[in-house]
């Protein structure tokens, strides 16, 4: 990680977008006090994670990339255990609340290992927020889920933000990034850009042209002067090109997707 500075506000779902190995998980681990940075400080809710790790840990919720739940415990027992680690006195109430909030009540007595993937992820999320943390770190919360389950999980993520939590969620799915209030593009341990999805797209439009060339061959498109990136798309080729690129006949200007933005910025970073 190299001089990363991010600000996530209460009530905001902040996306950390980047390819595998970009440093998303490392960042989250440092912020949650699991990993110590080589140098520098990490501040969460104004507290130095290195100096006061346990004050920070009490305030945050962290859903790890690999579902951390006890498969041999029931849904309710899993939630109760987590709640007791944070707020032992109110644990019962908190666990019951989380069961209701996440629609897990019908499965309260089911063993976590017997749940389907989507429901297990729901439980993992419920566990991370059972103590009503002010800050929530979610590391790839939807990896491996079907589209319907993913929608469900994102609904719940926004529900937590609406409660007032600052949510930092990592993902490498571009369509999920669209669901975040704001985003940071992370690449090779550095932040390439920060902004709302719209702001990022506007930024990209200022720097490059995003085009569709119907009926074009990939090799022909790549060899055109000023083309930064080209890839086959349906019946033609998609292009990212420099601002001064001269459009050929039949080329169409298209609205850049977040994936395009990402492709452009990483290209520039290299």
């Amino acid at each position, binding site marked *: 990680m190299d001089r990363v500075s991010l600000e996530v506000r209460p009530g905001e779902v902040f996306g950390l977008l980047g390819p595998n190995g970009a440093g998303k998980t490392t960042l989250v681990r440092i912020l949650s006090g699991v990993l110590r940075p080589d140098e520098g400080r990490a501040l969460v809710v104004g507290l130095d994670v290195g100096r006061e790790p346990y004050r920070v*840990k009490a305030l945050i919720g962290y859903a790890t990339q*690999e579902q951390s739940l006890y498969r041999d415990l029931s849904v309710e027992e899993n939630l109760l255990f987590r709640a007791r680690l944070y707020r032992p006195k109110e644990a019962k109430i908190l666990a019951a609340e989380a069961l209701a909030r996440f629609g897990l009540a019908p499965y309260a007595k089911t063993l976590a290992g017997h749940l389907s993937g989507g429901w297990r992820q729901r439980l993992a999320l419920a566990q991370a927020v059972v103590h009503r943390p002010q800050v929530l770190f979610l590391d790839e919360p939807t990896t491996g889920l079907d589209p319907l389950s993913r929608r469900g999980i994102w609904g719940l993520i926004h529900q937590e933000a609406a409660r007032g939590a600052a949510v930092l969620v990592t993902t490498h799915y571009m369509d999920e990034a669209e669901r975040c209030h704001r985003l940071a593009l992370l690449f090779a341990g550095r932040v390439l850009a920060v902004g709302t999805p719209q702001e990022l797209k506007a930024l990209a439009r200022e720097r490059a042209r995003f085009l569709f060339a119907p009926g074009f061959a990939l090799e022909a498109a790549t060899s055109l002067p000023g083309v930064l990136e080209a890839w086959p798309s349906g019946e033609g080729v998609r292009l990212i090109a420099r601002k001064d690129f001269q459009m050929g006949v039949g080329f169409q200007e298209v609205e850049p997707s977040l994936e395009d933005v990402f492709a452009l910025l990483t290209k520039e970073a290299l």
Partner: protein
Amino acid sequence: MSRILALAEKELLQIRRDHVLPRLIVLLPSLMLFLFGYAINFTLKNIPVAVHDAAQDRISKTLLWELTKEGTFRLALQAQSREEVVAALDRGRARVGLVVPAGALERVRRGESVGLEIYVDGTDPNFAFQAQAALRRVIQEVNARILVGRALAGERVLPPLSPEIHTLYNPENKTAWFMIPGILGLVLTAFTVLLTALAIVREAESRMMESLLASPLRPYEMVLGKVLPNLFIAFGVALLVLALGHFVFGVPVRGSLSLLLLAMFLFVLGSLAAGVLISTVARTQVQAVFGTYAYVLPTIVLSGFVFPIEGMPRLFQALSYLVPARYLIEVLRGVMLKGVGLQVVWPHLLALALFSALVLLLASARFQRQVAV
């Protein structure tokens, strides 16, 4: 067939890729050979004897010389009274006691028989049998030497020295009385070390560790939380063994029960810490099981659980002092069978406490370092 081979080769590959397992696979049998091959020796040697020699004459001198000449017995204590002899057996300083009455030589000259009082530590029936047989042989030898002289002089022939053997602590030679305190020690070792090592490694393997580390749970809370249930389980099992031993096998508890529990507690503390220590080295549950085995094996052989420490070569006798179970078993046998109290067993308790403190320190240092990534 080729599918079986594919699977078998993959298994071997995985074992080889494991960082700890291949070493353990080589180390364990070597350790076993070394321990069982060299340490275990059922023929007794160097049995410590406490002697109260009230006679101090030619007869008693000859007897002592014959007793110690072959190395089966060694003179551990010159006692001033019969009480001191028995006390030495209580304390475990001697395992055989001998009292030669005053005026032995005169009696022999008068043709009377001399009654030798002999005390044998009967804790281990096997030991008691062997020791008694060896003692009788020695006495026969001395008798024969006296008789040869007198027969030549044409006198009446009667065995002059007549031993009166008292088997202490376990007069009926019940093996169970000997084994059950040892089994208690083993159960306490195996259960605590294995359960603890497994519990912690299982947590790490199940990827839960990350979540626990991100929670306000302190490292010491994590260790205590993991270890406490095993403490209860180990104690529960130990009490069960104790109760079964007492009510089914009739093993007595002659000393104080609270002293027993104290020794068990000190010991368990150290064993739990050893479990934590193993868990800091082992990455997988298989490694933890093997690691525990490497810990328990020397305990079985060197603790005096069944194999007499007196029979071992000097190196192994020295090594046995590093095995905490040795002290526990000494306390258990002492308190249960001999009925001795704190004034006798305190050095063992101290050793247990020191061991536990040391391992506890080591384990927490390693665990802290491991958790603080």
